[in-house]
């Protein structure tokens, strides 16, 4: 058993192709700019910047039931960051999730997607981080999960199963635009990390690429071209607007983890890259889901304002909450106004799962694009005491909104709301992490049982 363990530990240590250009530091300004663009497209800031004043200094906290996990400092600080990494070490951390001292990162760091980063882009990224990012001598708090979850070596096994160890290369069958889109979607932007469902061990399910997945309190919907379950009915303009601004008018808004993707990454992509991603998204195989009607095409303006306003007894709690809270912004007939979106023809209220509506009510929306903040307050535990809504109120208003403006077959129970309340207290951009961690632990348990069995046999 011990020998197997050593073998497992050594396998991923196999040297990756040594980088030849580590010598030409510090890079030309073109190279640095290219590296900066790669860092934006790869959305490094979302998880590695905890406070705006200290970009990439890490320390973004993720509360999990097992303890708090902190992202690492990736500024060129020698003591606390990546200052001492040579390019090969940097590449290995980014693409394989292994630090120079051999410790493994959890796949909260999306290195399975980043493993496709081309050598040229990785070089630019390295040069950018080494020469254009200010070193921050702060050490993020140590992540210390209790046994057995602190066995980062369990990642070795997971990597063997799921890490592709393959660089991106265009294929003969695809146009250069689609190839660029594939590189952006699958590798740099790692869209599948959230949008592709995971199997038992939290490896991506094959044949379900971008088919939609649960992400803590949120659901990252199906974004394949399927007409009912996917985004096949969206126009190119709508999709481009969504990725550039977080809003596709009368269709969808980016909240939660997707809001962060738009805020930190896709809003800055050049139009050519946005078009390339759209071309690729049109091209991926459709994944059929449960939906019987496109989620963007449910509901209409209306409501019970005329019949219930002013009544003091026997008033439906759903309407009462809607009228007293939501209508303030979304207006009495749910039609929205200016920055406030309509609640009908809205992918959240037309979805075939209630999660995103409940999550929106609990945690709100906050997304800063082009200097403007789009903000809906949450009404969960983080809200001011006077603004908090109870499970009963949220249940009632969610059901009212589904019935009145959205997919009428959706139904929320108070226990669903209570469950989401707990799930969502986790930082949203790293929600995916928890689920992956779950798979890793499943592995640890399986390996542990296996070891136990072996020992028993020997004894």
């Amino acid at each position, binding site marked *: 058993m011990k020998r197997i363990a050593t073998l497992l530990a050594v396998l991923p240590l196999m040297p990756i192709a040594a980088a030849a250009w580590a010598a030409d530091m510090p890079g030309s300004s073109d190279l640095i700019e290219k590296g900066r663009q790669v860092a934006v497209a790869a959305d490094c800031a979302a998880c590695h910047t905890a406070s705006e004043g200290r970009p990439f200094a890490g320390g973004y906290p993720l509360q999990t039931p097992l303890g708090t996990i902190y992202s690492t400092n990736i500024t060129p600080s020698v003591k606390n960051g990546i200052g001492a990494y040579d390019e090969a070490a940097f590449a290995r951390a980014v693409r394989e999730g292994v630090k120079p001292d051999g410790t493994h990162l959890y796949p909260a760091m999306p290195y399975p997607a980043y493993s496709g980063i081309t050598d040229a882009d990785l070089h630019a990224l390295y040069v950018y981080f080494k020469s254009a990012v200010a070193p921050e001598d702060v050490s993020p708090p140590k992540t210390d999960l209790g046994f057995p979850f602190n066995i980062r070596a369990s990642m070795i096994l997971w990597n063997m199963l799921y890490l592709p160890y393959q660089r991106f290369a265009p294929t003969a069958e695809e146009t250069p635009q689609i190839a660029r889109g594939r590189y952006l979607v699958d590798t740099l932007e790692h869209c599948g990390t959230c949008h592709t469902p995971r199997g038992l061990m939290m490896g991506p399910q094959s044949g379900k690429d971008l088919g939609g997945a649960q992400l803590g309190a949120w659901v990252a919907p199906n974004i394949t071209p399927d007409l009912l379950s996917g985004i096949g009915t969206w126009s190119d303009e709508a999709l481009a607007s969504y990725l550039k601004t977080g809003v596709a008018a009368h269709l969808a808004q980016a909240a939660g983890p997707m809001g962060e993707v738009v805020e930190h990454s896709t809003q800055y992509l050049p139009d050519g890259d946005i078009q390339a991603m759209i071309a690729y998204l049109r091209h991926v195989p459709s994944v059929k889901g449960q939906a019987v009607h496109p989620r963007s095409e449910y509901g209409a303006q209306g409501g019970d*304002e005329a019949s219930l*306003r002013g009544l003091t007894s026997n008033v439906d709690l759903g309407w009462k909450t809607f009228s007293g809270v939501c209508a303030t912004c979304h207006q009495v007939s749910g039609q929205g106004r200016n920055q406030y979106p309509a609640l009908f023809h809205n992918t959240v209220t037309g979805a075939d799962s209630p999660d995103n509506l409940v999550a929106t009510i609990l945690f709100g929306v906050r997304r800063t694009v082009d200097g403007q903040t789009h903000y809906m307050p949450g009404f969960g535990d983080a809200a001011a005491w006077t603004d908090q809504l109870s499970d009963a109120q949220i249940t009632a208003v969610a059901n009212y909104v589904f019935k009145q403006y959205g997919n009428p077959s959706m139904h929320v129970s108070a226990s669903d709301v209570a469950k989401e309340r707990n799930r969502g207290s986790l930082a949203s951009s790293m929600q995916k992490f928890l689920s992956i961690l779950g798979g890793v632990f499943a592995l640890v348990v399986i390996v542990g049982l296996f070891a136990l069995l072996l020992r028993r046999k020997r004894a």
Partner: protein
Amino acid sequence: MIRLSKSLTRSSVMPERRVMLGRRSMLLGCGVAGLLGAAGYSSVLYASDQTDFLKVSSILTGKDDLDPTLAARYEASLTRHQADFPKRLNILGHIIAQGSYKDVESLFASSLMPSDRETAMSIISAWYLGVVGEADQAELIAFSDALMYQPCTDVLVVPSYGAGPLAWGEKPPV
């Protein structure tokens, strides 16, 4: 006298047949309107009855798109506050029909009895304010749907509703 008004008051809550006929047929009308509306036949429906609250309201306010649900609630509430409202409505309806008045201006230019003018004003007031009755008797029926807010809804948002950040324009460079 006391007994009479009491029974009338109760009758407005628990509608007595005679009093509520107009309202009931109108509610029926609403249902039919809903059905027909869906099929694309919206107009026509309330013209049959001279005492029809919605039709009278339409002439008094000069609007042909009044909400039938609100009309039913205003009528019921006016009846709650003024026991003889159905009778007054009936009289006003007949005056309008006989004079073939098409708008409130020509109606008010005629030699209207003070009590009929009062009835007309109570109906107009309900639609515009969204409130029936006064002081501690006031009953709120509509807020954002009150007619007083409608002329400027294209630009202004009804008080207490949000128009959205920056709805008044960009922050000036200070």
